[in-house]
């Protein structure tokens, strides 16, 4: 980039360029079920403002979004719904497990609770906390962006393998 702000030319690999675009335009689907949903709202609201990281375009349709934020408890009645939503998302898709309940069942080791969503769908990033503070959410989002830039998320790796075949 020149001193006057004009861009001459840059050289990069096409994959890197695409991943750079993907990482900065994440469209999340908030799958907020319980307490964590409120903290997710807090991180989207004015004070923490997730849109600074390019992730403010909330889409409630799985077909239009590429980041599934599972915020809150997933119990055995909800699990098939989550699986359907995940299957409906188009590749590449990333999954963020938000909070203790989604990651491992948390303090609810009981008959009705799924003990971690990673028993059903691949998870790219786990955010600890019950519920996580918005700072943690933003940290998690930035880590996810790093993963996307490196092409290391589950779905990107799967796609890369498919290409090689």
């Amino acid at each position, binding site marked *: 980039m020149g001193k006057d702000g004009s861009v001459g030319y840059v050289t990069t690999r096409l994959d890197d360029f695409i991943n750079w675009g993907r990482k900065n335009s994440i469209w999340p689907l908030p799958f907020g079920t319980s307490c964590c949903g409120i903290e997710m709202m807090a991180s989207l609201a004015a004070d923490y403002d997730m849109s600074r990281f390019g992730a403010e375009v909330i889409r409630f349709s799985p077909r239009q979004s590429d980041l599934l934020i599972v915020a809150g408890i997933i119990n*055995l*009645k909800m699990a*098939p*719904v989550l699986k*359907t939503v995940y299957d409906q998302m188009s590749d590449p898709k990333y999954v963020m497990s938000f909070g203790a309940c989604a990651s491992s069942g948390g303090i609810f*080791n*009981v*008959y*009705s609770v799924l003990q971690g969503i990673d028993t059903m769908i691949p998870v790219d990033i786990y955010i600890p906390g019950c519920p996580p503070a918005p700072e943690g959410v933003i940290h998690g989002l930035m880590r996810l962006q790093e993963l996307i830039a490196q092409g290391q998320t589950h779905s990107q790796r799967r796609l890369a393998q498919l290409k090689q075949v």
Partner: protein
Amino acid sequence: MDIRHPIPGNGGDWAVKFGEIWNSQISQVRDTFGAGIEDIKMPDTYPTDVPIVYVQRSKILEVLKYFKESVGFEYGFLADITATDESGSPRFEVAYQLFSHSRLCRIRIKVRVPEGEAIPSAVSLWKGADWAEREVFDMFGITFSGHPNLRRILMDERWVGHPLRKDYPIRGYQIFTDSQAVDPERLK
């Protein structure tokens, strides 16, 4: 020190405030229903916060109606319906928590239910009893006769067993691969 030790600032004045009302109501109910009332436990003799009226299973609807509508009672607000698993005989106790908006006092009505038997539904008195009774059915397996739509509410409809019974294991998972479909019967 237990519940009979009055705590100011946490309902500690109830026995003084409502004692006379409760006594007159209880004697009135005894006179009206006679043998329909199995037992009465008062706060001064039994560790409870409000009087508990044990009612015969067949009489429960009449007693609830009496408590709801009679002059001097007016327990018009059904605060809660729930059950306890006593693991004895009879196995369950169904508890109705009533609240009177005009007198601001509460009372608890209980029915003893053996396993596998039904009790009359209170939906004709309070429409809101519908879901509370469904929850009791879901969690304890107590059936309510005359209920318009007695089916599971919190658990999936394919669930086996009743989770809040004492013999249900706390980690008794049951996994389903698809979610519940829309039931067109319920839209008629």
